């Protein structure tokens, strides 16, 4: 279709609006209410343009182009119309730009410079709106609101958590919440970006800097396996805020609150700043070079004195691909086979049949092509907020979601079928009872296995049952993992049974659970918090206590590290080093250092690199390192994985009368977010309830107790909250360990006595 804009000919697609075409070809049209990912409301009237043959200027955002239409985006008529809209917008807008955080990036400011008048003829009283505290993440100044309704539409259309609404009407219209402090969406921060003025502001960033002084650095989210693209904004070598970097394949123009505010965790007071060695039971600071020499010495001696099988090397899948690669390379080159990253797991019988790496099996943005999606053991809303946007879209396109989870389900997209299960009845559900679901094998079906499954004491049985269930529906099977880089951890061989790219190891080492439960002489922990990052922190504690030597590479000094470390090697967080992650759809994404670390903190990969130098001739700079990794994995195709767990079987006995599971609390998932101050003030973080099923509650006696027999823990019955929709004999801890109370296994069948 032929159209003319400012007398130049363009080809437009049918149904394309004026603004869409102009955006595509780079003709600027001012706008406030229009946003390409939101519905068009055409209410701000800022985008009015002159169309030949039409009496009044028309909104470019809602007017579809017609054959031979002639649009003038800079004619006098256009200019006057836009200037008039601007005048209306400004009459009730406070002129407080000097104290407004949006100053410098305010669309209103920009547009009014360009289109507005230099004086106001409005002589009446201005509207004032009283502010409320809506969330620890967003500060409001609602008098500045220009009613573009982007924030409301975001809740309605994108996050599907509608918490902000338009109240009253006409001039008194305002954006508000029902209950103060209760904007709880895990995507709420996006409303800050969407707000074109300074009405919704970034609370932690408030008054920290002026935007024009900030430096922008590209980064990749380290908090979940989707790998959202981010810009970090720094001032004086400090990250002050994060905003989304557009990536249509992954996070579009959005960011989860965890990704947006998680960086705060790198400024935690308990950062490990200095290399330390224990002397007479106390950690004392030392020089980096002394430390490395000593470290090399200790490892060599440990091998000599206790044998390689007595050394356990554990690394967090939150580490970068470079770290993961060098970690296994270093220790395998020393003949150590006890290497693993699966510290949250208990049941490993599946491991030989596991694909080369966990993956979604499809691209993230292909998810809406599926007709039926089964979510097993995952709460997308809180664990993978960005994915919930994709699923919400999928549901609008008629995808049906079936959710089977161990926890209460609280998704922010409509779920067609949901069932809360325990680790035993999920087996029967998938083998028999699920027949009520009418899903055909010739439909496009997808099964997504979530991170909670991997924590189950019978995960192999569950995987095998899912596999058998899938024979009837012929779905693609994909995984979502608990950290941002499990893909690399698997692919690059941080496993006791596999080397790089899934090659079988010559010697099979011990898995993560065996390493800590069999009490080895030496432990090397990389980027792991003993308190939180293990399936059972009690067992870790006793392992660390009884070993001869504990070498801890860490960004944070936790109480257990302080108590049991023989050597602390401070390493940088994601923000202070170069690195890469491979996300769950197999995208390899690299990033550069955002801020300089403190003097004695080095990046993990360079320390490993230095250690490697003692024993091998391989030395790297980041570029050769990265290209070596990329070269090794270049033939991997995530779409070609066949999942075959049919014959795996758990070896663990599920003896207890009660199923317990700890929820993967959104803002406790990794060591960095755990320390993000603002996130810790959210509603999600405040939940430290222990939920129990009805049938347990029914056995309560007045002033009674519940004893966890195998763990010797006792709870007063009034410490529990009853959730009627839980299956019988189920206890759910909303967080693990953080309230200092429950430190046992993340998921287990135990005996309780009331």
């Amino acid at each position, binding site marked *: 279709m032929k159209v003319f804009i400012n007398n130049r000919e363009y080809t437009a697609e049918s149904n394309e609006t004026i603004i869409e075409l102009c955006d595509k070809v780079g003709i600027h049209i001012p706008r406030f209410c229009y946003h390409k990912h939101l519905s068009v409301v055409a209410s701000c009237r800022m985008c009015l343009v002159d169309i030949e043959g039409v009496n009044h200027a028309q909104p470019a955002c809602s007017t579809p182009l017609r054959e031979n239409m002639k649009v003038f985006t800079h004619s006098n008529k256009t200019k006057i119309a836009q200037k008039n809209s601007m005048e209306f917008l400004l009459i009730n807008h406070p002129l407080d730009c000097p104290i407004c955080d949006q100053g410098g990036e305010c669309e209103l400011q920009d547009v009014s410079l360009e289109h507005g008048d230099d004086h106001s003829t409005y002589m009446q009283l201005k509207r004032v709106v009283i502010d409320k505290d809506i969330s620890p993440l967003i500060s409001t100044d609602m008098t500045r609101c220009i009613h573009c309704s982007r924030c409301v539409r975001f809740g309605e259309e994108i996050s599907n958590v*509608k*918490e*902000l*609404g*338009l*109240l*009253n*009407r006409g001039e008194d219209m305002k954006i*508000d*919440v*029902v*209950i103060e402090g209760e904007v709880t969406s895990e995507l709420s921060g996006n409303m800050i970006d969407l707000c074109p003025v300074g009405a919704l502001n970034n609370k932690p960033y408030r008054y920290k800097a002026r935007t024009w002084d900030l430096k922008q650095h590209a980064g990749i989210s380290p908090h979940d396996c989707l790998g959202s693209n981010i810009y970090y904004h720094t001032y004086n070598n400090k990250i002050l805020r994060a905003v989304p970097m557009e990536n249509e394949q992954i996070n579009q123009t959005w960011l989860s609150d965890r990704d947006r505010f998680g960086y705060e965790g790198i400024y935690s007071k308990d950062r490990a700043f200095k290399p330390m060695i224990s002397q007479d039971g106390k950690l004392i600071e030392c020089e980096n070079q002394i430390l490395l020499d000593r470290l090399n010495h200790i490892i060599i001696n440990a091998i000599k004195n206790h044998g390689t099988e007595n050394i356990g090397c554990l690394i967090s899948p939150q580490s970068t691909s470079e770290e993961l690669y060098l970690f296994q390379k270093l220790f395998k080159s020393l003949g150590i086979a006890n290497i693993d990253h699966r510290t949250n797991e208990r049941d490993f019988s599946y491991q030989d049949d596991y694909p080369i790496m966990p993956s979604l099996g499809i691209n993230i943005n292909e998810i809406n092509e599926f007709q039926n999606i089964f979510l097993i053991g995952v709460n997308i809303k809180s664990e993978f907020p960005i994915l919930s946007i994709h699923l919400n879209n999928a549901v609008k396109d008629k995808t049906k979601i079936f959710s089977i989870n161990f926890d209460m389900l609280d998704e922010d997209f409509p779920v067609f079928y949901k069932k809360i299960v325990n680790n035993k009845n999920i087996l029967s559900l998938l083998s028999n009872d699920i027949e009520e679901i009418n899903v055909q094998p010739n439909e496009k079906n997808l099964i997504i296995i979530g991170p909670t499954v991997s924590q189950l004491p019978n995960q192999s049985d569950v995987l095998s049952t899912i596999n058998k269930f899938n024979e009837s529906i012929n779905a693609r099977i994909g995984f979502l993992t608990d950290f941002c880089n499990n893909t690399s951890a698997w692919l690059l061989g941080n496993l006791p049974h596999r080397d790089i790219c899934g090659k079988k190891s010559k010697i099979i080492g011990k898995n993560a659970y065996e390493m800590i439960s069999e009490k080895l002489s030496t432990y090397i922990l990389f980027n792991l918090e003993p308190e939180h990052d293990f399936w059972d922190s009690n067992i870790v504690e006793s392992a660390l206590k009884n070993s001869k030597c504990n070498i801890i590479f860490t960004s944070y000094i936790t109480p257990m590290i302080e108590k049991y470390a023989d050597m602390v090697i401070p390493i940088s967080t994601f923000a202070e080093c170069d690195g890469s992650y491979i996300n769950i759809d197999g995208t390899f994404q690299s990033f550069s250092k955002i801020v300089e670390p403190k003097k004695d903190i080095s990046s993990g990969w360079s320390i490993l690199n230095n250690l490697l130098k003692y024993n091998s001739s391989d030395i790297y700079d980041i570029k050769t390192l990265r290209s070596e990794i990329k070269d090794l994995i270049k033939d991997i195709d995530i779409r070609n994985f066949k999942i075959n767990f049919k014959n795996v079987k758990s070896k663990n006995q599920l003896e207890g009368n009660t199923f317990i599971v700890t929820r993967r609390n959104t803002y406790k998932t990794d060591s960095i977010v755990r320390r993000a101050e603002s996130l810790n003030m959210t509603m999600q973080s405040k939940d430290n309830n222990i939920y129990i099923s009805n049938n347990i509650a029914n056995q309560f006696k007045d002033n009674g107790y519940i004893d966890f027999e195998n763990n010797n823990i006792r709870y007063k019955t009034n410490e529990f909250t009853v959730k009627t929709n839980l299956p019988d004999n189920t206890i759910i801890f909303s967080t693990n360990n953080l309230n200092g109370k429950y430190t046992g296994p993340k998921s287990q069948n135990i005996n309780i006595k009331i």
Partner: protein
Amino acid sequence: MNEDYIISDNSKQLIDDVVKKFPNNQSRSAIIESLLILQHENNGFITKKIMKALAIYLTVHEIDIYEVATFYTMINVHPVGKNTIAVCNNVSCMLRGSDEILSHIEKKLNIKVGQSTKDNCFYLKDEIECLAACNGGPMMQVNHKNYENLTIDKVDKILESIK
């Protein structure tokens, strides 16, 4: 104090009938009439607890209800007097003397428009809409019942009869 609002069985029945007027899965459509029903049950106004209870009953977002409740002027989100008086003072009625009627009522009840009497007997609504009785002006509605061709005498009698 913190107990949830419980919708009476009678109101539930009425709301169910409203929901039936609409296609499946369109219970949101029932919000407006349901609010009128619940407001009637609750002395003429809606509280946040009522909105919450209704949101759960209709499975809609709480804010959806709050939005609607504050958009439509016949739904009060603040407590008001038992009997609502709305004097139409739009053009047609104004031309026929509604302003005198209104100020008479204000004086008589000792309140301004938008206020309720101290004994909570009357609420004098700030009626801006035309009440579609232009050929009977001046007119007012007391508890939605029309009284037309008003004179000051007539108004006095009507208000007496309600007290």
